[in-house]
């Protein structure tokens, strides 16, 4: 009877540990659903809220566009050159640009853009929310009958999603242009071949996975820091800070999305 007792106690312990973990994830999913519904409902974009939304969108996206584009261009120049020289030395130069498009546009750029947005916009936004929560500002709003999710979380989450998608699209464009210039030089004669190579890489399945990946990355980087800020303070008894846990959770989700996209693309 003793082994059964120990198994039961172990199961109880595991279940007790898993419960808050599951509850946190459930709250995250719940908040995500609420934010999505609010983001898709026209009533969220009323005249009085449009100003705040515009402000968040502009302040989250515009300052990082130029810097990230330049960074992407530099990385692309270096990586394209490496791939081209290596491919040439093996006599496989016809595959070089295809490899560059696959590696940079399909895999690296969306991930880097999402991480950049997370570090520069959504994690600071989450910290703001956490500070508001700590100072009791959000509770004050609740007392006045204002929903903090609608007034404070939604603009920041939408701005984060907008920034992630814009950055992914712009950096993909920059990478494509720079890779072309490095591969063919300042001439238009390679455009047809380059477009063909691009078309060969972007099959319908790959395009769909790319779009879904960019969307899920945007959702992950914009929602998880907000959820951690809103609900993280309540979970007592955990040694790590709410911000750090949110960060780890966000990286885990991004890793999962990336792995799922790789499985979809190459298996």
């Amino acid at each position, binding site marked *: 009877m003793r082994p059964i007792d120990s198994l039961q106690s172990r199961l109880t312990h595991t279940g007790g540990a898993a419960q808050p973990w599951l509850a946190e994830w459930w709250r995250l999913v719940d908040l995500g659903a609420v934010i999505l519904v609010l983001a898709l409902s026209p009533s969220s974009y009323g005249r009085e809220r*449009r*100003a705040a939304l515009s402000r968040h969108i502009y302040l989250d996206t515009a300052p990082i566009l130029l810097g990230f584009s330049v960074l992407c261009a530099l990385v692309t120049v270096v990586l394209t050159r490496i791939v081209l020289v290596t491919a040439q030395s093996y006599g496989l130069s*016809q595959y070089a640009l295809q490899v560059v498009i696959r590696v940079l546009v399909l895999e690296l750029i969306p991930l880097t853009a999402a991480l950049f947005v997370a570090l520069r916009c959504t994690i600071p936004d989450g910290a703001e929310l956490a*500070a508001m929560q700590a100072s009791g500002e959000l509770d004050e709003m609740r007392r006045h009958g204002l929903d903090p999710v609608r007034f404070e979380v939604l603009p920041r989450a939408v701005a984060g999603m*907008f920034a992630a998608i814009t950055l992914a*699209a712009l950096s993909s464009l920059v990478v494509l242009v720079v890779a072309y210039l490095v591969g063919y030089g300042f001439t238009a004669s390679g455009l047809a071949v380059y477009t*063909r190579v691009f*078309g060969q890489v972007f099959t319908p399945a790959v395009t769909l996975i790319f779009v879904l990946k960019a969307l899920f990355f945007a959702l992950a980087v914009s929602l998880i820091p907000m959820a951690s800020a809103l609900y993280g303070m309540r979970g007592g008894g955990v040694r790590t800070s709410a911000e750090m846990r949110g960060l780890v959770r966000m990286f885990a989700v991004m890793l999962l999305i990336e792995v799922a996209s790789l499985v979809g693309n190459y298996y």
Partner: protein
Amino acid sequence: MNPTRGPEPPAPSAPDAPNLKFRARLLLIFMLLLVCGSALYVLYARGVFESTQKLVLLADDSEGVVVGMDLTFAGFPIGRVRRIELAEDGKARILIDVAAGDARWLRASSIFTLSRGIVGGANLRAYSGVLEDPPLPDGAVRTVLQGDPGAEIHKAASSARELIENLNALTGSDGALGMTLANLRSVTARLNEMMKVRGGALAVLLGSEAEAKKLTVTLDRTNALLARLDGIAGRADIQVFGEAGVMPETRAAVVRLGALLDDARGTLKKVDAVLVDAHAIGGNVKDATADLGVLRGEVDASLRKIDGLINEINRKWPFARDTEIRLP
């Protein structure tokens, strides 16, 4: 993370609101343009906007062919694989969309090949030998010719293996080369042995010492015969080329013959002169004959005149004329 960004009030500050709104709108439009442009570019790159004609290639094996790969003509991509399916007869049907603008390179006599490199994917290529042929119709079905360097490598490897086996068989201890070398070794040993004793290599070649002796005797006699032949040749030389030999006399006869020919040439010249004279005489005779013709004509005229005169006289002469006709 960002120390400059503190908790923001829910409402933005009034002075920068319109400017921010406008910029946010610009950003929104920029993002929409970017996303829509990217989508359009992907569609364009996938060939959605180009008009195409269909081509079906039949292959025994479609390994290496993937959807989206190019069909090339002279190194330029002119079409792309849209679909691969297995036909009822077990052959692979490769459905290709050929761009309408590039379809003019494909003719009814064009051939299509599917080759697989050792490195990299398969290649679909089109060749049009006669560009004056009628163009390939839409939906044409053609069999694709397949070439596989990998299979060639297997063939070459099996041929090389056969070659090596043959070499091994040749060079083995019981092989032809080994036997030959063994025979050579025994011959050399025997040669050495015979060189030491008598007869030398001849005895080895002819089999026995007696045969070698016979050959030596034959050679001696041949030498003696050659010496005699040498003497005969010397005597014949004297007979032919000596002072009283055949050759000097022949030379004198030839000299005499030359003189005789000179004489004959002089005689012929004289005969030639005589012939010239005869020719002149003949010409004179011809002239005389012409004169004789004229003279005869004149004589004939004179005679006719005389005849007329006599008739006249006879008519006018009444007497002493006997006009009676006597019958016999």
